[in-house]
C-alpha cells in the first residue's frame, strides 16, 4: 500500500488506530466537522473551513499560504464563497502582503462540496482563497485556477472577471 503523503497526519493516525481500513478511496464527501476526523473510516475527509485551516492563495498578492482565524458571517464553518479573516503564514519576498499580516479573504475553492439550486454539486481538490480588502475587491491583479459561479451571487464580480476559468 503506497503511503499517501498528502493526507493530514491526524487522519492517517486515526485510520491506523481503527480496524484495517479498505484500500478503497473515499465515497462521497462526508459533511462531518473536522473534529470527527477519526470517526470516518474512509480516507478522504472533506469538511468545512474553520479556525486554523490552512488554505492556498489563488492570486498574486504575495502570500502563498494563509491560516484561517475567523469565519465571518456568524457561523463556525466556512463554505465556498464565504468571507474569512486569515493570517498569512507564507509569502514571497516582495509582495503586497507580508508574513504575519491579518487579511480578509474569500474562499474560492473548497474541498467540501457545495450544492447548487438545480441539484448539482461542485467541489475542488484543494481549499483556496483570494485576498480581498474590506470592500470585497481583490488586492492582487491576477487570479490563478478556476473559480465557481457562486461568487456571482456574493457580488465578487471583479474576481470573476479576473479569473481565467469560471465553473
Amino acid at each position, binding site marked *: 500500500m503506497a503511503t499517501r503523503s498528502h493526507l493530514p497526519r491526524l487522519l492517517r493516525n486515526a485510520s491506523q488506530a481503527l480496524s484495517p481500513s479498505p484500500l478503497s*478511496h473515499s465515497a462521497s464527501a462526508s459533511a462531518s466537522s473536522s473534529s470527527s476526523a477519526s470517526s470516518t473510516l474512509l480516507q478522504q475527509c472533506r469538511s468545512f473551513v474553520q479556525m486554523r485551516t490552512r488554505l492556498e492563495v489563488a492570486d498574486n498578492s504575495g502570500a502563498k499560504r494563509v491560516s484561517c482565524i475567523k469565519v465571518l458571517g456568524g457561523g463556525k464553518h466556512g463554505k465556498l464563497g464565504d468571507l474569512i479573516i486569515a493570517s498569512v503564514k507564507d509569502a514571497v519576498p516582495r509582495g503586497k502582503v507580508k508574513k504575519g499580516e491579518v487579511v480578509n479573504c474569500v474562499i474560492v475553492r473548497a474541498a467540501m462540496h457545495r450544492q447548487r439550486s*438545480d441539484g*448539482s454539486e*461542485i467541489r475542488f481538490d484543494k481549499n483556496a482563497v483570494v485576498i480581498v480588502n474590506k470592500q470585497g475587491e481583490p488586492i492582487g491583479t491576477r487570479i*490563478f*485556477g478556476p473559480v465557481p*459561479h457562486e461568487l456571482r451571487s456574493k457580488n465578487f464580480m471583479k474576481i470573476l472577471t479576473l479569473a481565467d476559468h469560471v*465553473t
Partner: protein
Amino acid sequence: MASTCIRQMATLSLKSRVVAAPKGLKVVGLSSPSFTPAVTPSLKQACEPLRSTFQVASKTSVNGRRDKFTVFAQAVTTTPETEAEADTTAEATVPETSDDAPAPAVKSKKLTTRVKHIMEILNKDAVEAANAEKVIPDIRPGDVIQLRIEVPENKRRVSLLRGIVISRRNAGINTTFRIRRVIAGVGVEMVFPLYSPNIKEIKVVDKRKVRRAKLFYLRDKIARMSSC
C-alpha cells in the same frame, strides 16, 4: 364385465411404475387424477368408489415422483370412441405432467397498480417522460463527456463542461453522475442529476477502458489521468 375390471384394478399396485397390462385392457399412461373422461359411462358408475381412492393415491404419487409416469391400467373397452377419447386425453394430460415439474420460471417484475408499488410506478413514469423529451445517451464510468449545461447561478447562459465520468449512481429519476476534470492545475468534480432539465446536451467524446464502476482512485493519481 364390471366385476372383472374391478378385480383387475384391485390387483394392480399403485406404486409400480410399469405395469404389465393384462390382455384386453388398454393401458392409458396417466399420472394426473383427471382420468374420468376416458372411462365409459357404464364403468363409471361401477368404478366410482375405487376411482376416488385412485385419485387420492395418484395425487400423492405424483407429488412424490414428479418426473416419472405412474401408469394406471384402466379397464377401457377398446371401442373406437373410447380409443379416440383415450388418445386425446392421454395427449392432453401428457403436457400437464411435464408442466408440473419445477420448470425454471423467468423472473419478471410485475408492477401491479397497488399502493405498495406506487413509488416505483411514479419513478418509472418520470423516467419515461424524461426520456421522451430528450435523448440521453448511456453514460458509463470511464466515458469522457461534454455537457451543455444551463447553470442557474450564471443567469441561464449555456456553458460547456467536459470531464471524465468517475461514477454513476442509479436511483431511477434521481440517477446522478460525477464528472472529474483538471482545470488549470486544479481538480474539479461536479455531480449532476442525469435527467436534469438544465442539461441541454450530453455528448460522449471518448471512452476509456476501466475496470471499475467508481473511479475514485483518479483523485490520487497524477493530473494527467483526469485531464481531458
